[in-house]
């Protein structure tokens, strides 16, 4: 069992500009760690940097990844120990391959195939709430709703037997009902499968709903680390207070002027 994934000293640069500055994060199995910040604060780049999936021109200068204290290469983590769920699920799938082909390809990396693979795919799809599994598997990405595709992304992560999940704004493109169902699923998997999750979001409602620990990011730096109760009751950084003020003005007052 893998219990912790530690990221140390993650620095990302584009030419001379520092976009992400010495970020340190530790993900624990069975916990949701939220990474929050305004648009453009470097949240998404951090998640891509962890897996070394950086856009052209952005360079990482020697981050250290530790899996249970043992140094590992990003290339060995992605798609295996660590899975990634992105904001726009439609663009994350290959448009000319059916979802069945995606699932089979994922299992191939684990050396599974044939009837065993089919059976595992079916149970995993049921686990993430895609009960109409044959129709989903025969479909292409453009034929399914955003909420279904996000579930499929999670199913692929489970098929890869990933212990850790990096979720970059997974619910920002979903409506509130699909969002609530997705967060229910995430919480259930964290509990039952002991998944460790890095949840990137700008919505403090999502954080309140399911995070255990929170890191607040601003201008490429982590400006605050706290437990979720600590953060909501006594935010220390200016950025955390701004995010919470916007959140509370929509949720606490609750009435039109």
């Amino acid at each position: 069992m893998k219990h912790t994934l530690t990221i140390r000293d993650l620095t990302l640069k584009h030419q001379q500009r520092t976009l992400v500055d010495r970020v340190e994060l530790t993900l624990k199995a069975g916990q949701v760690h939220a990474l929050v910040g305004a648009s453009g604060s470097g949240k998404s780049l951090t998640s891509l940097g962890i897996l070394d999936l950086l856009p052209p021109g952005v360079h990482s200068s020697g981050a250290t990844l530790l899996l249970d204290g043992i140094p590992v290469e990003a290339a060995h983590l992605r798609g295996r120990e660590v899975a990634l769920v992105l904001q726009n699920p439609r663009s994350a799938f290959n448009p000319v391959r059916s979802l069945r082909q995606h699932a089979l390809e994922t299992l191939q990396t684990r050396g599974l195939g044939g009837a065993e693979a089919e059976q595992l795919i079916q149970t995993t799809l049921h686990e993430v709430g895609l009960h109409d599994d044959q129709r989903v598997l025969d479909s292409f990405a453009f034929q399914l709703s955003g909420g279904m595709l996000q579930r499929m992304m999670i199913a692929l992560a489970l098929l890869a037997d990933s212990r850790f999940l990096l979720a970059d704004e997974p619910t920002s493109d979903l409506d509130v009902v699909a969002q609530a169902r997705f967060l229910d699923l995430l919480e259930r998997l964290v509990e039952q499968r002991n998944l460790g999750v890095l949840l990137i979001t700008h919505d403090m409602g999502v954080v309140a709903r399911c995070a255990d620990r929170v890191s607040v990011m601003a201008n490429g730096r982590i400006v605050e680390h706290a437990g979720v109760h600590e953060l909501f009751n006594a935010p220390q950084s200016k950025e955390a207070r701004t995010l919470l003020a916007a959140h509370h003005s929509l949720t606490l007052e609750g009435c039109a002027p």
Partner: protein
Amino acid sequence: MSFIQVRDLSHGYTAGGFFSKRHRVHVLDGLNLDLEQGQSLGLLGGSGSGKSTLARLLMGLENADQGSIVFNGQPPFLQSVQMVFQDALSAFNPQRSIGWSIAEPLRHLSTMSTESCKARVEHLLQQVQLEARDIDKLPAQLSGGQLQRAGIARAMAIGPQLIILDEALSNLDRVLQVQILDLLAQIRRDSGTGFLLITHDLSLVQRFCQRVVVLAEGKLVEDMPVTPQMRFTHPAARTLQEAVLPAMPRASKVYRETAIL
């Protein structure tokens, strides 16, 4: 006397055709709605409930299969109703300046001279808290929040009686959503423009609207004034209300955290 009267509105689309059998999808089914002048109304509904279809019919972009929409005794006309769209970037001509786009309703719907158009655009930019130099910028040079403000300025240009916001805040982060709602509340107080806020997010309605209606199965299933304690009774509306994210973390998280430590 209400300002907009919608009576027995039914509308649908034809689906399929290329690979599958053609069939009619019914979206709205005998819908009735009365809108007061200067009111801010929230229109809530899940995905596919027909919110945007209703908006398109109110705008006069499509003609309804059945039923009628009457504005002060007349059919809908762009001079009295304008719209702000969800995807601000695709709602602007990428090759034209922001100022040109904001002035577009003025060129088509008014007889203003070029100079007074420019003065009006400058005033509008100021009203939505954009800078005067943004007038010459291209859409791609503005951020999402700025561009949505420009969209609001364009909708206000002709001085409509109603502005429809079709998921116009859904792509913005919370901080920007609150800023824009406050701006809209200010505009409503100053100019008496009515607003129809179409969204699936009840917290935005609670912040901005005086009245809320919920659309499900082609009809309005709820219609009530917005109060902090309001509770929906229809199942589809309850689902939307229960999906609202909590204001504060749950107490039980503490136990889980300590259990892990």
